[in-house]
């Protein structure tokens, strides 16, 4: 579903992605782990070209990423994205947030879009918040609304860029549960996260990044019990020590 080949990117002097080769098969859930600044968010954002790359190729569902323009907008409509900061449209209600894409991009009627939106909000457990504005919701509710907004486009693949990192601890679970449900339903997912529990429980593969490189690519069991590289051992030592 996603294929990255020899992808390189610099931010000025900083080499943020070094020769990235990564495939995510249809229906697969891949978790990307790594220390801050290892390039995992950039990798995630590169897949729908929120970050343009310097060289290499990225394919989604067999088609190479187009340059700016209508073709890119079309591709993005098939790739759901969930952000660390939710990024719900602040001037629209939760229902309107979920309806905007189907109406503007898919050309759905307002009533059809509303029905789908309510079903999706029901699914993530916040149908009763549909008429509120984002600022009136808790972080966990906002993130679940953001997931519903992405799902409303019926995407082929979902990208999660640290979806729980801006949440209070008691709200993390409600978002993770929504993601686990989605994974069980067979959605293709690439998840950048620090949630080791999710990586162990829901991922088919764990990709470990450090300094812009993919250092390990293994099943969760293998990665957590037998990491091969020193960098991964060091990382796991730090986060699992307590």
């Amino acid at each position, binding site marked *: 579903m996603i294929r990255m080949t020899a992808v390189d990117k610099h931010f000025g002097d900083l080499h943020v992605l070094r020769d990235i080769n990564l495939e995510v098969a249809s229906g697969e859930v891949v978790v990307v782990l790594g220390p801050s600044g290892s390039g995992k968010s950039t990798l995630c954002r590169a897949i*729908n070209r*929120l970050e343009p790359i310097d060289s290499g190729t990225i394919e989604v569902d067999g088609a190479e990423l187009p340059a*700016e323009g*209508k073709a890119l*907008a*079309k591709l*993005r*409509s*098939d*790739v*759901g*994205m969930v*952000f660390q*900061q939710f*990024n*719900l*449209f*602040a*001037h629209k209600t939760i229902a309107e947030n979920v309806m*905007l*894409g189907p109406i*503007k*991009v898919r050309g759905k009627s307002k009533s059809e879009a509303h029905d789908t939106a309510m079903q999706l909000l029901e699914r993530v457990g916040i149908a009763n918040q549909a008429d509120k*504005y*984002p*600022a*009136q919701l808790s972080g966990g509710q906002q993130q679940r609304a*953001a997931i519903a*907004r*992405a799902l*409303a*486009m019926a995407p082929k693949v979902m990208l999660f860029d640290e979806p729980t990192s801006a949440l209070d601890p008691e709200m993390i679970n409600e978002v993770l549960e929504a993601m686990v449900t989605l994974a069980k339903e067979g959605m293709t997912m690439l998840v950048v996260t620090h949630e080791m529990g999710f990586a162990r429980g829901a991922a088919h593969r764990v990709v470990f990044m450090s300094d812009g490189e993919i250092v390990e690519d293994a099943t969760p069991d293998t990665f957590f019990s037998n990491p091969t590289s020193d960098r991964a051992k060091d990382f796991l030592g730090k986060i699992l020590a307590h």
Partner: protein
Amino acid sequence: MLDYFAPVTDNFGLFVDAFLGTLMICLYGAVGSLVLGTLIASFRVSPLPPLRAVGTAWVTVFRNCPLVIVLFFFAFGLPEIGINAPFLWFGITGLVVYTSAFVCEAVRSGINSVSAGQAEAARSIGLTFTQSLSTVVLPQALRTVVPPLGSVIIAMFKNSAIVGAFGVGGELFSTFATLVSARGLSIIPVLLGVAVGYLLITVPAGFGLDVLERRVAVSR
């Protein structure tokens, strides 16, 4: 006392007409410069370099030229290339073009105040640049730019006097000139009458803007 204001009371009908003339210039000017200025602002933030260049050039030229010079170009330059219209429309067009440069910069500051994440989210659900600007970014940007835009528009209302000084008749400033220089009425009472005419437009506009600002303010 009433005698002192005789130049105004005797010509009251003329003042009312002049007031309506100025009001009309102001309304056309406000609508035109808001629309054009917002369009130029969208050029300036466009992903297409040629559009950005046009926007930047527009602002650089029209923000930095005195209004009188811009008006001269419209009033005398356009007829020279074969475009003829009543003087009033050259005046309004000049005013709109000049003011649009300031509107553009106010709107652009509003666009920059909307967090980048909003536009990223809009693009990631498949909206094109134009759609994300018009449905997500601009509606939020316009909320923060009501106060600076209000100042720009009120300044434009007052600049309409310069259009009048250009010989467009039927508005407040040219009426003042006519009454004083052609008919020899005393300056101060006529000037006070004209000033009241402008204040009747600008002060309610200011109140209207305060109301608008409160109404569009949203928590985020």
